[in-house]
């Protein structure tokens, strides 16, 4: 088990665990406790990504679980050429996309009935619902953040994914294109479209670009 002391030592005030390399190496050798530490360090970040991409907490949590299960089983393939978090995010994005493909195959509609508590706020679906988490930061910023989250959630799927990965999580055009399996040009176009829609919905001036 990943003790809180180990976890605190691992995180040490940074997004990246100080002893990440050791934890990854131990997990690769089958140490589930080390892997739990990695999970504790990264689960909220992976959930943030999945939740923003899927807009539904239940689906996002499923994707997080599948991401870590897949990561555990694929640890031998992790060569350390990218950051562990980037590698996890790639798996998470893949899980989300797989889920969406499966949902499309089952002809499920995005607005199918769901418990209110399961739905992330969205401009198109449930935009009047409260956010399911309280963002860190000052209270006066909370309204602004909620507006932004709603605007993000209301974006068309393609644009939303690109904006989230690039503008929120900081990946490059090439990385985002690779993660989503699209061309770099498409990625740029989706980002442009997404930003334009966001500005419009947030009432920001075009001149601000």
């Amino acid at each position, binding site marked *: 088990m990943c003790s809180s002391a180990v976890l605190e030592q691992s995180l040490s005030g940074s997004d990246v665990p100080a002893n990440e390399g050791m934890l990854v190496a131990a997990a*690769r050798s*089958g140490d*589930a406790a080390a*892997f*739990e530490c990695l*999970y*504790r360090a990264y*689960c*909220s*970040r992976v*959930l*943030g*990504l999945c*939740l923003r991409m899927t807009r539904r*907490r239940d689906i996002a*949590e499923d994707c*997080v*679980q*599948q991401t*870590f*299960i*897949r990561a*555990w*089983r*694929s*640890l*031998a*393939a992790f060569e350390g050429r990218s950051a562990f978090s980037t590698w996890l995010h790639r798996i998470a994005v893949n899980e989300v996309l797989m889920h969406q493909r499966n949902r499309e195959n089952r002809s499920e509609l995005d607005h199918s009935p769901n418990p209110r508590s399961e739905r992330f706020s969205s401009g198109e679906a449930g935009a009047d619902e409260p956010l*399911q*988490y309280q*963002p*860190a*930061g000052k209270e006066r*910023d909370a309204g*602004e*953040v909620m507006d*932004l*989250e709603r605007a993000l959630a209301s974006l068309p799927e393609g644009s939303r994914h690109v*904006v989230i990965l690039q*503008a*929120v*999580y900081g990946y490059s055009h090439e990385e985002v294109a690779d993660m989503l399996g699209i061309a770099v040009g498409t990625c740029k176009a989706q980002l442009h479209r997404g*930003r334009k829609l*966001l*500005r419009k919905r*947030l009432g*920001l001036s075009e001149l*601000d*670009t």
Partner: protein
Amino acid sequence: MTEHEPDQLDARLARLDRNIEPVRDLWPAIAAAIAEPVPHTRDAGSTRWFSSSRFHSGRSWAIAASLLLMIASSAVTYVVTQRSMQAEVIRARQAVAQQLQPVLAVMPANFGGQMQMDAEYSRAHAVLDAQFAVALQSLPVPERARLERSVGDLRRAARELSAMLAEHPSDPLLQELLLSTYQNELGLLARVNGLQSATSLGADL
């Protein structure tokens, strides 16, 4: 404003918290899943494929091995038979054919709606059965016990099939099975009688 200079939208997006805490602990389900023995060398997709493939492959190997063993066994038996017992086998086959001829002559190709064999069949069967009883006496005890057990199994199967056929008289599968069981029993009786005759004949020669 240049393209590289952060605008208000970028600034707001950058302030978003990238981390969202789960409302429930997701680890127990993950821990349960990873506790299963799965190879670490492939990703999940290929692992599922690998597991499934390995399962089917393992089963296929078992079937293939069984078939190979049967073929090898049959081939060895055939070669040995051909080389060392060819004359005896030919005599035995002739004797079996001779024994079965009167019975097969009265055995119908199918029941045609009947559930019982006719009297002529019963008489031919009784003759074979009597010869079988005699032939058994000349066999070693273990061999005799094995043959009696085999005949008993066949007769029990025939009784059960007859009972089922009485309830479903038009069932073609049951008819086929019962007919096949009768033929197997007769075949066994005739083979034992024929082999015994051939052995006697061979000894006489």
